[in-house]
């Protein structure tokens, strides 16, 4: 296992969307777990509700690490004060696509679009910037999205 204290450790930002679709919180915690296992430090960025859902679900912070306000994260990256090796944007609506496009423009991170919800295919089709799409029709059941995530294994790239 990679030493999590290593100075050269990779980092990943998980850009959370509106938490109204249940699978987001579950997949975000799972992804944080897999990233940690691979020695990659995950940082969660979301609005207050999205972050609070994670913090309450993981009170001992076994999976979560740093969790920051989404607008603050965008500001830090835009102003080149901070960047990440990997970026996962959680998308189930038009706003999510806008956040992914923004991350594509302001960050040098390898970008993954994690797309879910009832209209995942329409949302995925609207993405016309370079990124890796991980898209499944997942609303309440996270397993279709988890399966695709495991197949893509972005933590191993």
């Amino acid at each position, binding site marked *: 296992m990679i030493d999590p204290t290593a100075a050269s450790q990779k980092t990943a930002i998980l850009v959370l969307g509106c938490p109204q679709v249940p699978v987001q919180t579950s997949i975000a915690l799972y992804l944080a777990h897999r990233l940690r296992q691979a020695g990659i430090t995950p940082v969660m960025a979301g*609005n207050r509700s999205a972050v609070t859902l994670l913090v309450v679900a993981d009170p001992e912070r076994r999976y979560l690490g740093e969790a920051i306000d989404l607008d603050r994260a*965008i500001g830090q990256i835009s102003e080149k004060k901070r960047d990440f090796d990997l970026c996962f944007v959680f998308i189930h609506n038009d*706003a999510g*696509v806008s956040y992914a*496009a923004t991350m594509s423009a302001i960050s040098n991170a390898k970008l993954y679009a994690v797309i879910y919800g009832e209209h995942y295919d329409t949302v995925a089709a609207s993405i016309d910037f370079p990124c890796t799409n991980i898209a499944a029709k997942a609303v309440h059941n996270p397993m279709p999205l988890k399966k695709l995530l495991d197949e893509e294994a972005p933590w191993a790239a």
Partner: protein
Amino acid sequence: MGCIESLPYEVILRGSSFKESRDYVYEHYKEHRDVPPGFKVFDTHIIGVPPIAIGFDGDFVIFPFTKPCHGTFLLRIEDPKEAARLRALK
């Protein structure tokens, strides 16, 4: 983005898609400019799919403001200094 929320803004479009917001600016404001994502307007980094359209109407600045749960709002704020600053960047 508390800064914008504390300003006296007018909502032109509510809960729109990003493209609808951009098209509205192109169609309704003769004076407009495109900016990249992350560009600062009213001390806020703008979120969106490029090109992001900002419109001008006298001392008013018209720009998109995106929130994860509510989509994109097209806002109109009167601020001669900010309008002048943005125009000068052309």
